[in-house]
């Protein structure tokens, strides 16, 4: 019985980006609102950046889900690194033109000029730091035609900061930074996530102190928190199956949090 509670709670923290699992957090939702607004503005391009695990991909898929019913929107979660392949995919998705053979940038510009869409399509590009700077420059030029809008995400590292400077700062791009959660936000995140999956028992075992310990270990990073809590519930599952006397089902134990942190490498022992 109990092991079921733990294993279902465990699955909540599988690291997957799925718009239906999106939880509404205060700061996140204001940022999300401003993102939605800037997408509506003409000529606005949006750069979403932040450290890995701050929820950029989650944002994009949520945006995709919310907008797809009202406008043309396309999400590319993994970058299409081959240039010809990239333009061929765009022409197929945006204009329903299946191109055979190579398609270069100038040829794609011709297609773009010939096909005036009433509604400007929105293209969401995740993990844009993987694109080469030449490819990035071409994406920017496409945006300058005002015939396609882009929202792209970037991991924030020094190198990517440089790309951001070169390509976006002087342009008409709007930049939005995503950050790690505060301890309060992290508690909301954990509890909302569990409640959403109907794991009420799982949600109730987290008090402020244990959340503070989790926050200290993960620094509020959503991905690290997922990793940690997945292992925490994994350990709980093991105990409830093999040594149930060792666990308290009403309050999460710091020891188990720390054991999970050791197992996931978030703290080294």
């Amino acid at each position, binding site marked *: 019985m109990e092991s079921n509670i733990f294993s279902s709670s465990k699955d909540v923290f599988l690291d997957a980006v799925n718009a239906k699992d999106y939880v509404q957090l205060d700061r996140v939702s204001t940022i999300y609102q401003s993102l939605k607004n800037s997408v509506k503005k003409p000529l606005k391009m949006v750069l979403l950046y932040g450290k890995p695990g701050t929820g950029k991909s989650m944002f994009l898929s949520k945006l995709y889900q919310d907008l797809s019913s009202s406008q043309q929107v396309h999400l590319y979660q993994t970058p299409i690194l081959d240039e010809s392949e990239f333009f061929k995919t765009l022409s197929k998705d945006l204009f329903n033109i299946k191109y055979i053979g190579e398609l270069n940038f100038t040829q794609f510009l011709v297609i773009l000029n010939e096909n005036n869409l009433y509604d400007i399509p929105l293209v969401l590009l995740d993990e844009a730091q993987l694109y080469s700077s030449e490819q990035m420059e071409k994406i920017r030029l496409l945006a300058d035609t005002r015939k396609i809008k882009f929202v792209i995400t970037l991991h924030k590292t020094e190198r990517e900061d440089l790309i951001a400077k070169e390509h976006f700062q002087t342009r008409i791009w709007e930049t939005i930074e995503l950050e790690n959660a505060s301890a309060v936000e992290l508690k909301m995140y954990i509890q909302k996530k569990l409640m959403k999956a109907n794991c009420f028992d799982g949600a109730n075992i987290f008090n402020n102190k244990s959340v503070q310990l989790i926050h200290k270990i993960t620094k509020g990073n959503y991905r690290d928190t997922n990793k940690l809590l997945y*292992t925490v519930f*994994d*350990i709980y599952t*093991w*105990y409830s199956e*093999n040594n149930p006397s060792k666990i308290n089902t009403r309050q999460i134990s710091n*020891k188990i949090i*720390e*054991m999970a942190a*050791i*197992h996931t490498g978030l*703290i080294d*022992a």
Partner: protein
Amino acid sequence: MLNIYDLEKKWLTYKIKSFLPVISIFIALLIIIIAIYLFVDLKKLNILDTTIPSTITKKQENNISNAVQESLKKETPVVQSKDISQEIVTPTRVEEAIQLPPRNETPSHEKNILEPSMAFMETMQSKPLRQTTNTQKTVPKNTVQVPKKQTATTITQKPQTQLTHETNSITIKKQNTYEDIEYVIKRFKKNNNPALSLFVAKKYYELGEYKQAYNYALITNEINNNIEASWIIFSKSLVKLNQKAKAIQTLQQYINHSDSNQAKLLLKEILSGKFK
């Protein structure tokens, strides 16, 4: 996939490791405290001349210092005060005190060392009180009661100190030295602290009682053979007792063992005949 037993072990070592800094900080603090304590002790050894008399009289509290101070206050009828302070100021010592003036002439400067230390102690008692009242008076007078109380205490304090200053005659100082020695010997017999025996050696040396100085320096060295000042007094006493060769031999051995600069200097002075 999950090896809980292994993980529990790792967790335990992690916990111990995370407590290590706390424990080491605690140990470091303890060592520092001990070091400071030892350092203060050493300092006492080095500046015994000035510190010990005052510290001793301070520690006695109700014993000698008060008795002496009382006798000092009742300055004119000296004989009476001796009777009152029964314990320490025994009749024999009073006689000594009376006889003292002629003796004083020889080691007069050494008594001068004692005098400022006493004055220092007395001002120590009275000063802080005066200072606090002064500062509190200049700072806004918030409440009327508090300054009043403090001035009251200073008033009672002042006459005491003034009295003692006025009555600081040489004879009493001399008496103090002998009383100090007596008292320190008593204490030394109780706790065998080399700082005390060294103090006694120094005092006897100052009083020209070189045999006693030699004895107490020897005792000190037996308890702790690393006290520079004790070896110096020991060697000096030997010279004074016409045992120059033995003094030189002792100093040389001590220098070999400790590389003491003060010992080297003394040896030089003895060899050159500067110190007799």
